[in-house]
């Protein structure tokens, strides 16, 4: 294992120290317990937005703290969800009297810890609603699994719900728009290589040089099936087809196309994937009216990518376009 780290046990806290120092104009880092808030604190009268999850997915989630998006983010240990005693102060810090929306990715650990924290927050008179993101179509049947995972589509939920909160929508309205995004966003990912969690010291799964994993999650876990390495165009079609089919996209509809890098894949390859995904959508008569390409929801140094499609309407487009000022997303 070659990594630019000091002590595996200090990776998260040292990351946060550097992150906070580099971006003191946007975020404030808190320790014991670890969480991140907007530099200026909660905005009076605005619905607060909080998300969190394991570290190792940077810039998710702390990179999306700032005006127009999250009020607080809670990073757990690497690939391990945060604990309730971390989440609770983040929920309290994000509450400016209008309540808080917690955005949770559908992983067992994230759901259980947020559930506990939300109960504790409600006991402290903080009004909290929870939206669980489950955009990963690789997990087909929730009857036989823990349900679809929440992956890159989380960025769209955080951006759009964040814009709704920023313009002054109340908790009911912010929750409703977040659920609307969840209902209309789907993703599928591929890993070309595994990644190495600092405290594990070896790759999170064994993948031969000439094989790839289709349908991976974002915690370094293996995917649903393994296939021989194929061309970028072939892989892109394998990722996009189930996404489009699951959404039931029809000709004439508008979408956001988001190609996300898993951390170890260069931008050039992400654009090759984007190019093919866009062509496939256009063949179906689907209009790509908004785009995002880059490393936003990563798995450490894993090579790979995910393709996310969000069905857009006028409201979602307006909220996507609204100004955002975070360390990882700004326009």
């Amino acid at each position, binding site marked *: 294992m070659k990594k630019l780290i000091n002590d595996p046990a200090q990776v998260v806290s040292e990351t946060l120290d550097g992150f906070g120092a580099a971006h003191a104009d946007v975020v404030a880092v808190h320790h014991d317990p670890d969480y991140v808030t907007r530099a200026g604190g909660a905005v009076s009268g605005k619905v607060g937005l909080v998300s969190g999850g394991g570290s190792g997915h940077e810039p998710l989630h702390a990179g999306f703290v700032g005006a127009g998006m999250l009020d607080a983010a809670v990073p757990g240990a690497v690939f*391990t969800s945060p604990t*309730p005693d971390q989440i609770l102060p983040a929920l309290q810090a994000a509450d400016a009297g209008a309540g808080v929306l917690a955005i949770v990715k559908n992983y067992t650990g994230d759901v259980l810890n947020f559930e506990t924290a939300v109960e504790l927050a409600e006991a402290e008179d903080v009004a909290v609603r929870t939206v669980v993101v489950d955009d990963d179509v690789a997990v087909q049947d929730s009857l036989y699994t823990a349900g679809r995972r929440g992956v890159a589509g989380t960025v769209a939920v955080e951006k759009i719900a964040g814009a709704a909160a920023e313009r002054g929508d109340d908790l009911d309205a912010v929750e409703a728009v977040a659920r609307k995004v969840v209902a209309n966003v789907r993703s599928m990912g591929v890993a070309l290589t595994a990644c190495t969690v600092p405290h594990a010291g070896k790759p999170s799964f064994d993948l031969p040089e000439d094989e790839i994993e289709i349908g991976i999650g974002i915690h370094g*876990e293996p995917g649903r099936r393994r296939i021989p390495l194929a061309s970028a165009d072939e892989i892109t079609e394998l990722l996009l087809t189930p996404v489009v089919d699951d959404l039931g996209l029809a000709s004439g509809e508008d979408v956001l196309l988001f190609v996300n890098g898993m951390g170890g894949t260069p931008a050039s390859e992400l654009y090759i994937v984007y190019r093919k995904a866009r062509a496939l959508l256009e063949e179906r008569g689907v209009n790509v009216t908004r785009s995002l390409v880059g490393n936003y929801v990563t798995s450490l140094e894993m090579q790979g990518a995910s393709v996310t499609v969000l069905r857009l309407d006028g409201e979602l487009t307006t909220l996507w376009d609204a100004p955002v000022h975070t360390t990882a997303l700004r326009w």
Partner: protein
Amino acid sequence: MALDVAWAVDWVRESARTVVEHRDELVELDRQIGDGDHGENLKRGFTAVVGKLDALAEPPAAVGDVLKLVATTLMSTVGGAAGPLYGTAYLRAAKATAVPALDPAGVVALVEAALDGVVARGKATTGEKTMVDAWSPAAEAAAASAAAGGDPVAVLTAAAHAAAEGADSTVPLVATKGRASYLGERSAGHLDPGARSTQLLLEAAVVAAGRAS
């Protein structure tokens, strides 16, 4: 003989020792079908519990007080699914053991309450390749041993033995709960790390009981 507070404290210390000893094994089991953090997370949690025990000004009065300390510490240090699951298991067990020492029925109550906590938090049943597959037979075996007139150590030993068999029984299963469920059929052929750690913790309880008697 009864299992008292000193036993409970020794159980916690023995748990920490065994979790550290088996850290790499649990990480590897989890790496095969999950994300490879189970051993590290439990090591972090139980190391914190021992730190809190060492810092106590006075020894706890009831077995349940020791288990409550374990519960709250695991909840605030472990994270992942294991933190809430074990946290809830120990919290329920703590409520069931608010006495200075456990008789046979008390040991049964401890294991049954832990099982109830895991089931309530994780919404899993047996056969889904989770720690329930170790806790559930442990609770049944404990009750059977107590009904047959076993002393507290015998009841605990029966529970640990059944947990070990239950953990082994997870190998051929296809996971339908937790992280391993995403592997589908490919999860078969692997020992569930949560069931294995459950077995280790109950075996630690027996080791501590052996020292107490």
